């Protein structure tokens, strides 16, 4: 006990001292940025061990591969790459003249040392297909594969494959990403107060920015402070009062207000999130595909978009976000609002309209439990879904759970309907949520279908090339939608709000999410 208590007391003293010495300072060379509320509480800047990585990670660590808004792949720390015909090897040519924050060079040896660090970590699956890494020359490496992985580039572009300096990583152990974080990125970490803020200072040597950004040299701001604010209204009030300069993700409630304010500007980019309603195909009344289809068609995506999200974002009609090639499916498989058909289907299924606006069959009302998370945005969305279901005669009873508990509840398989969302931009999300071996959670719909399993196997392991993978996943995705375990609702955009008197940003962004590609172009306002 002694040690930890003393640690606590010591920290108290230190932080009190810090509070006295630190005055609120806003220089033109410094910008204060608020992280999205779902990024609050990241415990460490450690891409290998971390399970939650906030946007500031991309400012510290560069990746081998960068992605554009259309999910195409571009060089970053890797100048070029080549995939072997049979998918059993990948060769990467690395950029020259790159150094880490601690002065260590970035070269082939870095990659050879880095990949094995994943072993046994939460993120090990990212490199699970790699047998070993061979150094071909000072700036060329080859991944020898255990089996083909058409997802390789996607993994390399993910935040978890930002490249840390392997020697520092090993030397610092648990302190890596807490007391020090060593990458090649445009900023280095100066201080990190978990749950409060992270201060980054510019890496003056930086000349290896991605070609996707206008600026490939050192960043324009000397210091960036990333603050963590969990409460949405508080974050917005900070932006509005000039307490901060940028909100990385303006809470949807405040999007219209940011648009209206003179000094504030909204920059929107396609997000990676998709909101949907899911039905348990093993529970009455959703064992009947007609009832499932009716419920799916009862959802008025446009009304939700206009009234809940103030018209910002997209009405979703597939289970995948629209930027993915696998989302380009035939029109007849898209799911959108059709109340007449919904009513007709329910009639056909034997559910007749009762006196109080709820359909009845064999003396039983069409009542279902409607689950969702207790966050205010989910509650609000679910209230509208409830009203829309009621309009076709389905009575939903809302129950809200916190995010950890609701997963546990799903495992019971007792759910009937749920409103949820996911954040992911790869087609393998269909496998994750509808694979027959993950019933309960993540397969909340308890969807088991032999044909779907065949298509799934082809998509997951039967694809040799990226093009083949796209085709296979498109077919799998289409088939799942045709069985109506789900109704897509809404695809949010990420709205970056900023104070135009303090910072300036380009009008368009070529990135899949807000990351260093976006923020390196941020400059002090003139």
């Amino acid at each position, binding site marked *: 006990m002694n040690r930890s208590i003393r640690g606590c007391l010591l920290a108290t003293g230190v932080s009190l001292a810090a509070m006295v010495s630190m005055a609120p300072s806003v220089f033109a060379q410094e910008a204060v940025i608020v992280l999205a509320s779902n990024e609050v509480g990241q415990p460490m800047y450690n891409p290998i061990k971390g399970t939650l990585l906030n946007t500031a990670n991309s400012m510290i660590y560069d990746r081998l591969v960068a992605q554009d808004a259309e999910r195409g792949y571009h060089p970053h720390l890797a100048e070029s790459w080549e995939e072997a015909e049979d998918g059993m090897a990948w060769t990467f040519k690395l950029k020259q003249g790159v150094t880490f924050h601690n002065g260590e060079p970035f070269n082939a040896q870095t990659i050879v040392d880095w990949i094995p660090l994943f072993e046994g970590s939460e993120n090990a699956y990212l490199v699970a297909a790699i047998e070993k890494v061979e150094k071909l020359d000072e700036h060329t490496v080859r991944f020898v594969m255990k089996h083909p992985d058409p997802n390789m580039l996607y993994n390399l572009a993910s935040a978890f494959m930002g490249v840390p300096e392997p020697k520092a990583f090993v030397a610092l152990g648990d302190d890596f990403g807490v007391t020090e974080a060593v990458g090649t990125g445009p900023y280095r970490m100066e201080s990190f107060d978990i749950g409060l803020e992270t201060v980054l200072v510019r890496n003056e040597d930086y000349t290896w920015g991605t070609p996707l950004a206008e600026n490939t040299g050192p960043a324009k701001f000397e210091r960036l402070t990333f603050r963590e604010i969990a409460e949405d*209204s508080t974050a917005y009030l900070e932006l509005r009062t000039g307490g901060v300069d940028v909100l990385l993700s303006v809470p949807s409630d405040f999007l219209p*207000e940011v648009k209206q304010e003179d000094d504030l500007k909204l920059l929107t980019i396609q997000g990676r999130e998709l909101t949907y309603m899911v039905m348990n195909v093993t529970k009455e009344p959703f064992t009947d595909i007609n009832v499932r289809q009716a419920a799916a068609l009862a959802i008025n995506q446009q*009304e939700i978009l206009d009234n809940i999200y103030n018209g910002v974002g997209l009405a979703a009609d597939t289970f995948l976000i629209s930027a993915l090639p696998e989302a380009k499916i035939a029109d007849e498989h898209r799911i959108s609002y059709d109340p007449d058909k919904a009513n007709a289907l329910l009639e056909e299924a034997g559910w007749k309209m009762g006196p109080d606006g709820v359909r009845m069959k064999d003396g039983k009302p069409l009542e279902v439990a409607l689950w969702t998370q*207790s966050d205010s945005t989910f509650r609000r969305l679910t209230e509208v879904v409830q009203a829309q279901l009621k309009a076709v005669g389905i009575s939903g*009873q*809302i*129950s*809200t*759970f916190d995010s950890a*508990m609701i997963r546990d509840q799903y495992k019971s398989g007792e759910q009937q309907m749920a409103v949820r969302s996911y954040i992911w931009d790869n087609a393998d999300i269909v496998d994750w949520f509808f694979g027959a071996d993950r019933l309960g959670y993540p397969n909340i719909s308890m969807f088991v279908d032999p044909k779907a399993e065949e298509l799934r196997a082809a998509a997951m392991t039967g694809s040799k090339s990226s093009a083949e993978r796209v085709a296979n996943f498109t077919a799998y995705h289409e088939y799942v939608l045709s069985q109506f375990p789900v109704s897509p609702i809404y695809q949010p955009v990420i709205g970056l709000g900023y104070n135009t008197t303090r910072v300036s940003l380009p009008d368009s962004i070529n990135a899949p999410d807000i990351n260093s590609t976006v923020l390196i172009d941020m400059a002090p306002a003139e």
Partner: protein
Amino acid sequence: MKVGTFDTRSGAIARALATPKGVIAGGWLFLVVFVAIFAPYLTPYDYDIQNLPNAFAPPSAAHWLGTDEFGRDLLTRIMYGARTSLSVSSVAIGISVFCGMCLGAAAGFFGGWFDRAVTVAVDLTWSFPEILVALILVAIMGPGVTGTMIAIGVAYLAQFTRLTRAQIMAIKSETFVEASRSLGAGHGYILFRHLLPNALTPVIVAAMLATGDAIILEATLGFFGLGAQPPTPSWGALMSSGTAQLFKAPWIIILPGVAVAVTVFAINLFGDALVRALDVRAGLREA
């Protein structure tokens, strides 16, 4: 220690109502309870029918307090909210009073290791902020009104255990109890005939005051998205959804908060008046 019988207690309410503070507070409480009970007959709109195009309408002749984010009449929802908030908090306090009295009476009456264990446990839970106790219990019990009632009930349990125990300890050695005992009365007879009735007066006052705290606690749980499930309104849930509209429609968060503050204020004023009328030792409310 004053001995209050049922007669003096009902007389006390009359005496409490005779003071100006008592009248105002009592009047407001009567109004709130009346509205809560008869909400379906008094409200001009349905609390759950949405009218999305009419969202965020400011106060007007048609909607005296404006509308919320789904175009529902805010006055209607506050009136129904009184129903949820009052019933949750009073049932919760009912639970704490019942269980607290049983525990406290047993501890005070039997003494010994049981008394010591109860005292330690009670001291500990009492010193934890109720909101933490309630949050953890809601997590265990799951969502919905029932879980919330039990959670709030347990959060305030310690207070009543403590109070009852103190009362029983004080009266236990009084002469009339000793007399009864020497006449051969059993444990149960003494406990239920002599001790509990005499301990009841301060407990009633404390229960009244705790109901006010429970209303705030219910509202706070609502702020965290716990408690009554949508579309059922409660004061806490109304404020929680109002936080997002702080600029656009400030009345959505301000008015339910005013309802909470004024009602809890009235409960406290009336409690004070009752304390004076009953002539219970004034310090008891802090016990």
